[in-house]
């Protein structure tokens, strides 16, 4: 089967690396200035062929390269994991002025967590490119989804992901309820640690 990203695999990799480099740059500039890190982990991935095809189908879109690049916005996924809640806000300020990138959508699942307890801040960037894109636009544009979260939120999401893809779970309702409780407890810890940090620094 031909790749759903047919002909654009390398382009997506290049764009992902370019954007993460820009993020690393502002992170380095910040730590040079303050001696502190704006984030602990920075990673990226290209959505797997299988997930992209499933998402096209789920969204009622034709399963083709145009859908993958233009209709669906998370072919490129970038994750920024921070120590403290306020670091997320500081990263957002930087991301909104990232050169060559425009924020086209923001979803705040920290202020309004998903029902299962998922917390993260999602932001869709439109990234300009020096070559025409699949629609022939010049400059070309590609989308990247940036997810910002604390380490606690990241750990929770990893566990929830594991549960979601495990088929034969006993007591799924119980596990879901306990996961939700964990999410609320972790959120409480994030808020408490931020509060203590503020008190120490005030």
């Amino acid at each position, binding site marked *: 089967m031909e790749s759903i990203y047919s002909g654009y695999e390398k382009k997506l990799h290049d764009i992902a690396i370019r954007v993460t480099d820009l993020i690393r740059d502002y992170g380095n500039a910040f730590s040079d200035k303050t001696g502190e890190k704006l984030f602990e982990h920075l990673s990226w991935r290209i959505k797997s062929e299988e997930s992209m095809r499933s998402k096209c189908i789920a969204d009622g879109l034709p399963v083709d390269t145009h859908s993958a690049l233009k209709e669906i916005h998370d072919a490129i996924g970038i994750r920024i994991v921070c120590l403290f809640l306020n670091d997320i806000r500081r990263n957002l300020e930087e991301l909104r002025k990232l050169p060559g990138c425009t924020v086209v959508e923001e979803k705040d699942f920290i*202020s*309004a*967590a998903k029902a299962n307890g998922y917390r993260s801040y999602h932001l869709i960037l439109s990234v300009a490119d020096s070559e025409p894109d699949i629609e022939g636009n010049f400059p070309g544009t590609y989308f990247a989804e940036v997810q910002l979260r604390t380490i606690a939120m990241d750990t929770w999401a990893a566990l929830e992901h594991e549960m979601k893809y495990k088929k034969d779970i006993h007591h799924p309702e119980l596990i879901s309820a306990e996961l939700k*409780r964990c999410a*609320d*407890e972790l*959120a*409480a810890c994030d*808020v*408490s640690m*931020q*509060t*203590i940090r*503020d*008190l120490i620094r005030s």
Partner: protein
Amino acid sequence: MWFFLFFYNDWGLLMKILLAEDETDLAEVVSAMLTHSGYSVDTVANGLEAVEKTKSDAYDAILLDVMMPVMDGLTAVKEIRKDGNTTPVLFLTAKTEVDDRIAGLDAGADDYLTKPFAMGELLARVRAMTRRHGQYTSSIVTLQDLTLDTSKSELTCRNSISLAVREARLMEQFMNHPGIAFSTEELLEKFWKNEDGADGEAVWMYISFLRNKLKSVGSSLVISGESGGAYVLTQGAAV
């Protein structure tokens, strides 16, 4: 072989019973029996001492003799209820007149037992009372956009978040008395009683925790006040 059966309350603590009985022998035997059954018991000799104990300690049940010197059981239960204390109260009474039972129940008692009584019946009534209390006392407190579930220590508005036990108790106090200012000293007294090293700084830290948690769940309510001063739960400034 000995078997020990302990009763625990909602907080996972050993159930605590206050016994007010002026007949020393009876007080001793009832206290011994309750202790043997797994309760923790404080014994006092009159109604006034009982009222004072309920102000400093939280009990899961109160057993009050009706006829006592200094302050009788009827007056004591009225005093206890006056402060909003809903702890179940069982009257122990030598009187069998209907009028006395009515007066006792109307004064705020939950149940009564006439002397002499079988120990087994007393224990059964205590079990019934403490069970009922846990079920019937609402653990949900709501105020405007905010909901506090004290049994789960969970605060909810747009989001939900967990609270530490002390945070939940403080929050409950504020939510039950919106607009009322509580001084740092009052809060220390009520929520940090008998704790070494607790001072205004500790209160300020917990107020700070609650402020940020209110913000985190997206509530329009705020706790205002300066470090070391008085704190009050109010509607935040319109955004």
